[in-house]
């Protein structure tokens, strides 16, 4: 994920400082890893270096003095370019669940038991996300991010169900490869 483009996107609504951008990032992407303040600060410096943002001035607002940043015209164009650019569908399967199943087959482990345990963990997380999404007053950002996570977990689950059913055949194929 491109933190610089996300910060440019947050700057689109007007000048802001690092702490505020970090706070708004965490609000807009509630299921994502929270943005570290240090990362917000270094990303802003790089945006300035590359001419995509510039320093607007400082703002103290009664507290410590903070540097305010705003997007440049180049920054706005770069944001529009990135936002419309197709994200290439993942060319390689690098998923940990997939790797564990294959390695487990290779090493004579018990992939079926692993898949059952993983399914339980996935279902538990899906229940948590469903509660988050269904809570009265859940905002759009929360619902969208919960939907995103639920659909990806669901895709994992469908693969795990199919794999559990295929396991006998799959084991024979990996054994003879």
């Amino acid at each position, binding site marked *: 994920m491109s933190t610089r483009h996300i910060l440019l996107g947050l700057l689109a609504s007007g000048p802001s400082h690092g702490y505020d951008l970090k706070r708004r990032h965490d609000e807009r992407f509630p299921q994502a890893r929270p943005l570290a303040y240090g990362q917000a600060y270094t990303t802003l410096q790089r945006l300035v270096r590359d001419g995509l943002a510039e320093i607007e001035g400082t703002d103290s607002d009664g507290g410590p003095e903070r540097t305010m940043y705003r997007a440049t015209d180049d920054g706005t164009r770069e944001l529009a370019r990135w936002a419309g650019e197709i994200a290439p569908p993942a060319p390689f399967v690098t998923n940990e669940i997939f790797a564990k199943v294959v390695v487990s087959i290779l090493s004579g482990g018990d992939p079926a038991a692993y898949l059952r345990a993983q399914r339980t963990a*996935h279902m*538990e997380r*899906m*229940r948590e*996300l469903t509660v988050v999404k269904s809570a009265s007053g859940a905002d759009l950002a929360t619902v969208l991010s919960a939907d995103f996570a639920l659909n990806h977990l669901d895709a994992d689950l469908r693969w795990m169900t199919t794999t559990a059913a295929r396991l006998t055949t799959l084991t024979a194929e990996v054994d003879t490869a």
Partner: protein
Amino acid sequence: MSMGHNTAGPLLAGRALVKAHGRTEALRGASVELRAGEILAVTGASGSGKSTLVHCLSGIVRPDAGSVTYAGERLEELPEKRLSELRRTEFGVVFQFGQLIPELTALDNVALPLMLAGTGRAEARAAAGEWLERFGVRGQAESRPGELSGGQAQRAALARALVTGPRVVFADEPTGALDSLASEQVMSALVHTAREAGTAVLLITHDAQVAAYADREVQLRDGAVASLEVTA
């Protein structure tokens, strides 16, 4: 996320259930417990015995072996009259297609179970209106099933299943014919209303996103329970 008053033992329990359709054994020793007020998902592939399990637990069919206990009563020992009474007053049922009566309005469909139980027409229609309101389809009260969207029809069917105040609702693939947003509306309405009313729900689904609305999940495989998750 189970509720505090669920610790008194199961409200409904099927033990070692066996049921064959001709030569095909649909259930091979499945055991399932449903606690009062709990929402339990029963998942599994097609042909794993999910629907047969619901038919046995709801007293629609008698198992070949094993027992079903509801609130201390063994269903297989009950005379048909008492079984019918249980099904009418204690159990509500919803299927993949709501099976509303096409000639009746949504309101009259929901009022019908109350009228069959002896409630007067005006009172039954008033109660039906309240249940349609709870499921967000009061505005469709005078529409016939053919005029409702799939999601609206399922919400009306849920209102009909809950109008008599059952302690258990059996929902067999209630969102099976719906798109994801309509499915979400139906599930949210069902879970919210069941929790409010303290109704236990036995939810049959092959969809993990639907099963995630439940407190826990039982997976069926080849007519037996493959895993029994215990959640907090």
